[in-house]
């Protein structure tokens, strides 16, 4: 069927792109410590973009039996589509990044179940009353891209994800502590995950009040997402073109503290986000976004790059870089973002603080004026530092501020990152101009 479709596209359109992806995944779920379900999921989808008379259209489906409907949808989309003049990817990308580990393919359901049981048992040995939920997912698949420039690309992908959520209930106090790690290989260190979670549980045994509203805030692990959600919008070339990004006219200027450097990284092996090319076949590459506080680049795809007079940075994805979604129009999205580490270890940082609040997790992320950099969030998992030690859990605390202000003055970026294979790798980062409501 895809061959028939390709023949039609060649016949009818001067510029076209055909992509399809097929994946098989096995999610295994433990609920309250017991094996709850095993799932087999097959996913197949294909999509096309094509130009005619200066307009671009898009169609997608997973229904291989209805080519007529698909081509009709494509025609209607083109007839009514936006005016556009850009080229699909032209240059065959190099394939040097490793994205597939066959050990994931060969991982049996029994093996996955055993890992889940090990995680549950390890936590229950220390805290028998904590409810432990674990989801483990293995996934393998392949993405194909062909276009009218003669590009024919295929990339295998594998993924192994472990997600652990602990529920700790005492009297009227309900607390969730979680961690999630994924990798293209089977090397997710779940023992390290469990040790990190147990360490956090230990610190929640006491709830302490904050004595001051003006203390340094350490954004760590998932907490760093507070600082980056606005940047994913602000550094997006599409938003720069729309003039909605607060950074639109700040290229080449110092926008943040000199300690802060951010790279869109295209050269990491064996992460779930590792790709040799983006979802329109453009080579993934390292792009320096912010260098010692200076704004150096935005991210673009072929279309937005052509409108901005810039090259594509290989930042075009369907869904997001981790999880290909053929039903989604390809758009500019962040890749793997790495923040340059500082010189101080996390432990040394804590010892150096007279007072502070460590923010590991928040409620309400993304539910505000994110484009402007604003955040106002409840700290759902945070710890109080006093005189160089973590003294207990902070509760009923809200933090508020503006990321574009907060990152202008950074007290410290540490060098400690237990897991550096995520799509956002930022070590704990300390800022002082965050408002606390207690």
């Amino acid at each position, binding site marked *: 069927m895809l061959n028939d479709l390709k023949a039609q596209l060649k016949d009818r359109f001067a510029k076209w792109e055909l992509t399809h992806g097929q994946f098989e995944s096995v999610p295994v779920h433990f609920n309250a410590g017991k094996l*709850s379900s095993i799932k*087999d999921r097959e996913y197949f*989808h294909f999509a096309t973009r094509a130009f005619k008379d200066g307009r671009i259209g898009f169609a997608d489906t997973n229904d291989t039996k209805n080519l007529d409907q698909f081509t009709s949808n494509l025609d209607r*989309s083109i007839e009514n589509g936006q005016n556009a003049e850009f080229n699909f990817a032209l240059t065959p990308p190099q394939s040097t990044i490793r994205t597939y580990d066959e050990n994931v393919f060969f991982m049996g359901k029994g093996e996955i179940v055993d890992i889940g049981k090990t995680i549950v048992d390890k936590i229950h040995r220390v805290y028998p009353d904590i*409810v432990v939920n674990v989801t483990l997912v293995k996934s393998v698949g392949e993405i194909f891209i062909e276009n009218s420039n003669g590009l024919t690309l295929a990339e295998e992908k594998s993924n192994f994800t472990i997600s652990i959520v602990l529920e700790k209930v005492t009297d009227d106090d309900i607390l969730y502590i979680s961690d999630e790690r994924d990798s293209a290989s089977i090397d997710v260190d779940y023992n390290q995950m469990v040790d990190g979670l147990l360490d956090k549980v230990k610190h929640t045994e006491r709830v302490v009040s904050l004595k001051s509203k003006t203390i340094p805030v350490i954004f760590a692990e998932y907490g760093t997402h507070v600082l980056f959600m606005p940047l994913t919008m602000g550094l997006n070339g599409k938003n720069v073109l*729309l003039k909605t990004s*607060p950074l639109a006219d700040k290229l080449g200027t110092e926008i943040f503290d000199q300690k802060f450097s951010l790279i869109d990284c295209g050269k990491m092996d064996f992460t779930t986000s590792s790709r040799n090319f983006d979802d329109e076949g453009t080579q993934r590459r390292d792009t320096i976004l912010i260098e010692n506080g200076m704004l150096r680049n935005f991210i673009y795809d072929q279309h937005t790059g052509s409108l901005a007079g810039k090259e594509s940075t290989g930042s075009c994805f369907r869904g997001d870089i981790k999880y290909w979604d053929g039903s989604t129009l390809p758009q500019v999205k962040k890749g793997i973002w790495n923040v340059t580490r500082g010189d101080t270890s996390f432990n040394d940082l804590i010892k150096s603080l007279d007072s502070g609040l460590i923010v590991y997790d928040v409620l*309400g992320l993304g*539910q505000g004026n994110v484009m402007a950099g604003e955040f106002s969030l409840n700290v759902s998992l945070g710890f109080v530092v006093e005189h160089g030690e973590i003294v207990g859990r902070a509760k009923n605390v809200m933090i508020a501020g503006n990321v574009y202000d907060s990152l202008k003055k950074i007290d410290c970026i540490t060098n400690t990152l237990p897991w550096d294979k995520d799509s956002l790798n930022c070590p704990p980062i300390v800022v002082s101009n965050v408002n606390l409501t207690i």
Partner: protein
Amino acid sequence: MRELLFEILNESKASFTEIRIEKSYFSEVRFRGKELDSIGSSTSVGGIVRCLENGGWGIAVFDSLDNIPYHLEKACESAKMVGSTLPDEKKVLLCSVPPVEDEISAKMDRDFREIPINEKKRLLEGYNDLILCSDRRIVSSHVYYFDKFIDYYYANSEGTYIHEERPDLSLYLGAIAKDSESVQNSVEGVSGKSGYNIALRHEDLAKEAAKRACDLLTAKPVVGGTYEVILDQVIAGTFVHEAFGHLSESDHLFENEKLRNIMTLGKEIGPKFLNILDDGSIRGLRGTHKYDDEGVCTRKNYLVRDGVLVGRLHSRETAKKMNENPTGNARALNYQHEPIVRMTNTYIDKGSTSFDEILVSTKNGIYAKGFIGGNTAMELFTFSAAYGYAVRDGKIEELRRDIVLSGNLFKTLLDIEFIGNDLEWKELGGCGKNGQNGLPTPHASPHIKIGNVMVGGR
């Protein structure tokens, strides 16, 4: 389809099997700024098999209907594997429900599948132009329309067969304003399942979104602290969804004894005039279906009556485990997911106080309006208002922005001081849980006033 599904079910070796098939049609139009961002239609087909054998669940999801028996066998094998690991007291049992056979047709004023895509584009273009031309401070827009029609089939090994047509439509009208100091955005929208006419004649909403985005440029952010808060119907509905609704979902409770003890039926959880319900049978709402995704009849469920916790939301599994009646709340986002316990249409029932009385009672507070979103960690929750006003001595004063309210379930419900008499439904948006994001869960409330709400701010 009926014959095919029962033929396959008859081959199943599991003690219980269910199959859900969906054939979907989808169309969308999106403008961002002056430019059309996307336009098109798509179709998809797929299904899911769930087997229960020896007390364990096995599931298989597929994108082609060509070889369902193969997927059934996989699901059955997985179920046996899961069941073999479970001690007797942990094995899954399902509460009994009568089998049903039903065909439910959609009732639409105008079937959006018959509306040409260029007509939808013209409609959106009109709204988009209104927004962009309304004020020189408007720098961009985000105007988005989608419609979806699902031909839904469900059958199980107990003899239930349901064929339902499920339409859905949403229109978002977003305006983005910018000046030298700030960028602000504002969204209005509508949603529903009664057909294409839902999307028509919303020029006023488009203008309102643009005006508010501009007004927010000069509004001051709220100062963080604890306030008396009046919630309009929209944000109050979000409040009940986040603050209470999720903790009513029994799959959070049924394997967690301590949580069940905290949420014991009969516990006083709010003032005597507080009544909270979830009702999947209310005519015409997006969260309404005659049956849930296990074939159980939906119904009106009291969760809180006269301030007392009286009910929960269940799937067949949680109802059996907790020895309570099924409630028709097992829902799946689409065929790629198994059903989990979800809200349907959740609301605070109307009280007897007028809005004017609520306002007059407020000495120093915030009147929060509209919603951006909400989030919960069961005990703690947040919800974000689209905008609001300072209230002093019973009067609505200056516009405020960046209003994020947070609370503690066990305290905040008890701090409700007034419940208004002006119930309104909000259908736009959806709920996320366990990776199933965007499920329609309309919510409603009258105006309510809560004392002592923590509001984040600078």
